[in-house]
Structures are given as structure tokens and as C-alpha cells.
């Protein structure tokens, strides 16, 4: 419930950011540079006099977009690969699983940095980089489900009735593999948000002046001693957001499989 509440709150904040944010997240007020948290600016201001709270609120949009879309890309590629691998078996299974091994061995952050260097900075490229790197786990999960299900009687019955491979996979196999995939995807949204923040922190993710939590942290590096609030609040919201998705994933797993509650 805690996880669901955090995630719902975050979604509401992201959607209604223009109504909730007290200030424009981009507009600069030179005379309000590096002000500490107070009545006007609850989370303080940065070097350019921009309101940290408003930037944190708008930053939730980038994080949520990346989390959901990048993981969506991973899920789609993973399901396709998993279906080809588990359902059809043979050479396609061997090849896809070897390719998955390569992606498992690939250092995640380094891979994301390399792809971003090729594609260039920008949010669309972050979707692609994180989406491309995360498919292998979903392929493995879906393949495992297919292998355990595909020889069951009801699948044979469907086949005997003349159902196509597409119909068997989408109507009979996928609904039975849905639970582990949705649980893993939910937890992966948190990981994607951390990776996006890391890329922006390293300067190759979301570009200024778009407010993004990782970018805000990298901007705080030079003022760590005189304006620690610049670092504390974006970091805290990343932590709370990731925690929300992890707890939501845990909760979903318990809901789908009550035995796990023990």
C-alpha cells in the first residue's frame, strides 16, 4: 500500500506539475541565487535563482516518462524474444539465449553511456538506451513461463482446435506469464529511473534547462559546501520514488502469489 501510495502521488504530481509547482522551474531570478530553504522557497534555490521545489516537481515528469517508456520498450523486446525463444525453440532459442547472455554480461551503466554517446543526449535517446539494455531479463522470464506451460493439455487442446501460434501465445500463454512480468517490470521502473538520473548526472542524459533530478544533482556538485539543499532534495525524491516502485513490485508479487507473503 505504501508503494502504491508513493507511485500514485508521484503520478499526480507529474500530471499536475504546472498547477502544483509554486514557480516556473526554468525562469531565473538572479537576486534569489543560492537561497536556503525558507517560506518563499521551501526547498531553496539554485545558482540561477530557480526554485528547487518547482524543479523537483517538474523533474518527476522526466523520471516517470523514462521509467515507464524505457521499461515498456524492454518488455516489448523481451516478450518478442522470449516468445521466439521459448515457443519455437531450436536454433532461435539457442541464438536468442546467447544474445541474452551477452546483454547480461554487459555492464549496464557503461552500456548506457556508450549508447548515449552514439545517439547523443536527449530524452528519446535515454528511452532507447535503457530500453535496449533491459530486455534480456524479460525474455528469460517469458521463455521460462512458456517452457513450463507450452506442453500443458489446454495448449494442446487450443492447438487441436486450430488456434494459430500467435493466438496461443497472446491468448493462452501470455495471461499465465503476466504476473511475474508485471512484478519485474514495476521493480525495473525504479532501476530505469536510477540509470536515467545517473546518465543526467554524468552529463549525457537530459540536457539543461529541462529539470531532471540527476542533472540537478550534478549541478549541485560545485556548491556542495555552501548550498547542500541543492543536493539533498533531488536525491531524496529519487530515493523515495525508487523505493515506491520497489515496494509496489513487492506488493504486486504478494498479491499475485499469496504464498510469498511468508
Amino acid at each position, binding site marked *: 500500500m505504501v508503494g502504491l501510495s508513493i507511485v500514485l502521488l508521484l503520478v499526480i504530481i507529474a500530471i499536475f506539475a504546472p498547477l502544483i509547482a509554486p514557480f516556473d522551474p526554468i525562469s531565473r531570478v538572479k537576486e534569489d541565487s543560492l537561497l536556503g530553504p525558507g517560506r518563499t522557497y521551501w526547498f531553496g534555490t539554485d545558482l540561477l535563482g530557480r526554485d528547487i521545489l518547482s524543479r523537483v516537481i517538474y523533474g518527476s515528469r522526466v523520471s516517470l516518462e523514462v521509467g515507464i517508456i524505457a521499461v515498456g520498450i524492454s518488455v516489448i523486446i523481451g516478450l518478442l524474444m522470449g516468445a521466439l525463444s521459448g515457443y519455437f525453440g531450436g536454433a532461435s532459442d539457442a541464438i536468442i539465449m*546467447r544474445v541474452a547472455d551477452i546483454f547480461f554480461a554487459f*555492464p549496464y551503466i557503461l552500456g548506457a553511456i*556508450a549508447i548515449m*554517446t*552514439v545517439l547523443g543526449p536527449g530524452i528519446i535517446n535515454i528511452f532507447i538506451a535503457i530500453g535496449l539494455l533491459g530486455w534480456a531479463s524479460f525474455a528469460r522470464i517469458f521463455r521460462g513461463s512458456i517452457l513450463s506451460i507450452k506442453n500443458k493439455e489446454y495448449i494442446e487442446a487450443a492447438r487441436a482446435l486450430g488456434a494459430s501460434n500467435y493466438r496461443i501465445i497472446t491468448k493462452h500463454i501470455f495471461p499465465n506469464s503476466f504476473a511475474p512480468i508485471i512484478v519485474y517490470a514495476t521493480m525495473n521502473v525504479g532501476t530505469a529511473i536510477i540509470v536515467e538520473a545517473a546518465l543526467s548526472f554524468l552529463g549525457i542524459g537530459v540536457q539543461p534547462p529541462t529539470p531532471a533530478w540527476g542533472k540537478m544533482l550534478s549541478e549541485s556538485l560545485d556548491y556542495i559546501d555552501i548550498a547542500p539543499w541543492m543536493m539533498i532534495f533531488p536525491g531524496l525524491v529519487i*530515493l523515495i520514488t525508487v523505493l515506491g516502485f520497489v515496494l509496489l513490485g513487492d506488493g504486486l508479487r504478494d498479491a499475485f502469489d499469496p504464498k510469498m507473503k511468508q
Partner: protein
Amino acid sequence: MLYFILRRILQIIPVIIGVTLILFILMYVIPEDPAQLILQKGATPEALANLRAKMGIDRPLHVQYWRYMRGLFSGDLGTSYRYGRSVNSILAQHYPYSIRLAFAAIILEIIIGLFAGIVSAVKKYSFWDSLVTISTTIVVCVPVYWLGMILQVTFGLKLGWLPMSGYGDGSIKYYILPAITLASVSIAYVARMMRSTMLEALSNDYIVTAYAKGLSQFKVVGKHAMKNALIPVVTLVGLDLGALMGGAILTETVFNWPGVGRTLYLAVLQRDAPVVIGGTIILVSIFVIMNLIVDIIYAWLDPRIRYEKREPGL
């Protein structure tokens, strides 16, 4: 056993080749001319063309890849575009820093992770158990670089107890903050796993017997339960050692640590393809070799693994 080891080694080869191929393609499609990188601005078109021909980068991708792989199998990782030095020597210079930091992190992971896990299991549902469970859940959600920054501000800047960044004279005080940062997530995983394996071990009949014989809790936990509870944790630590030895890009960047992770990050930003590819190959190799060693140890401990029927595609 020999068949098992050979099979696992054969599975590694396509992984290494695949990683090199992906990186090679990525670095190849970067719209930047390595000859321009080396000669800088102001180079004549003739000079650029000459250098391209000399480096072989005017050849098609597959020719370049084949040449690189031939060099790789003879132990040559190529020459850096930026520094004009061999990639082997650059990595040899930076790897020791990463390996030392990895060992410092592993030591923390073992000491803190095991201790927290054991306390949590032995004092199940107590305040300490809740503390370990909650803190490990939170720690795995913390961005490592943010944790690094918090530690820098707290212990480096405000309290002045430890250096904020760098390697300095290489004394222990320079290792503490980066090692804690690097180990944080792993400590949480070790503590969680130790808790669950310890709880399982403590529920066995031989533990009840040990208590019935009048042994102290210290002996029962430390001698009888610990032995069985440790095996999966050792596996986790082994895999972690492989992952951490590959250098930690974020931790090394925040702490300005002269390791291979930071070197690789800078090389990517500088489009120094030979360093990126060479460094990643070594990094992935260490990771998969550590995986292999852990698997072999596991297979040695548990014969069921080495005799298991091969699942198709795995």
C-alpha cells in the same frame, strides 16, 4: 567435472565476441573521425587521409573488426586515440586502483553484511531485525553517487574526518568513503541473504539438538548454523567481486578515484574507442570468469549441478 568446466568455458567465448562486436559497432557509428581526434584541428586533408590509411580505419567495418580480433587474441588491445599509448598500458596503470577499492568494498560487504544478517536472523522480529530490514530496503534504492556526495559533505566537509576525494598517498583514510559507497548496495543484499539463509539453517533439527546438548547460542549460531548458511552468501560475494573489480564508474567519478571505471567513462566521453572496447572486454572477462569460478565451486560442492541434464538453450 571436466565436461562441466569445458562446457562453461565454451559458453563464455560467444559472450566475449558478442560484447566486442556490439561495442565495435557502437564506436564505429560515432560520427567522429579518429584521425581528426589524434591530429586535432588544422590538419590537412592529406595528413588525415594518410593517418586513416595507416590506422586502417578507412577499411570496411568487418575488416577492421577482424584485424582487432586478431590483435585481441594475441593480447594486443590497440592504441588509444587520445594518449597515443597502448590500451594495455593504460589499463595496467588504472586497474590496480579499482582492484584495491573492490577488495576494500568486499571486506566491508562481508563484515557488515554478515553481521547485520546474523543479528537480524538471531533476533528475529526484534528492533534490530526491523532496523536491518528497513535500512537494507532503503539502501538498495539510494543512487550510489548521491550516497557518495552525502558522505563527502558529512565526513569530509562538515566533520573533516576523512578526505573528500582522490587517492592521495593511498592510505586507508582515502579508501573509507568510496569503499562504503561502492559496497552499500552489496552490503544490503548480503545482509538480506544472510538473514534468510540463517533463518532457514536455524530451523533445522540439528540446531534444536545442539541447543538440547546445552551449547551456548554463540556456538550454535557461529559453528553449526553458520556453516550451512554461508554457502549461498559466499556465491553472492564471489559474483560481487567480479562485478566490483570491473571498476565502478559512478563511485570512481564522484570520488575522483583513478581507477578503470573513471578511465572508461572519460574514454567514452572522449570517443576513445580502443580504450572503451579494450577496457570493457577486460571488465566483462573478469565478470564472466568470476561467474565461472563461482559455478565451478558450486558444482564441486553440489554434484547435482554438474550432472544436471542440460536444458535446451541454456
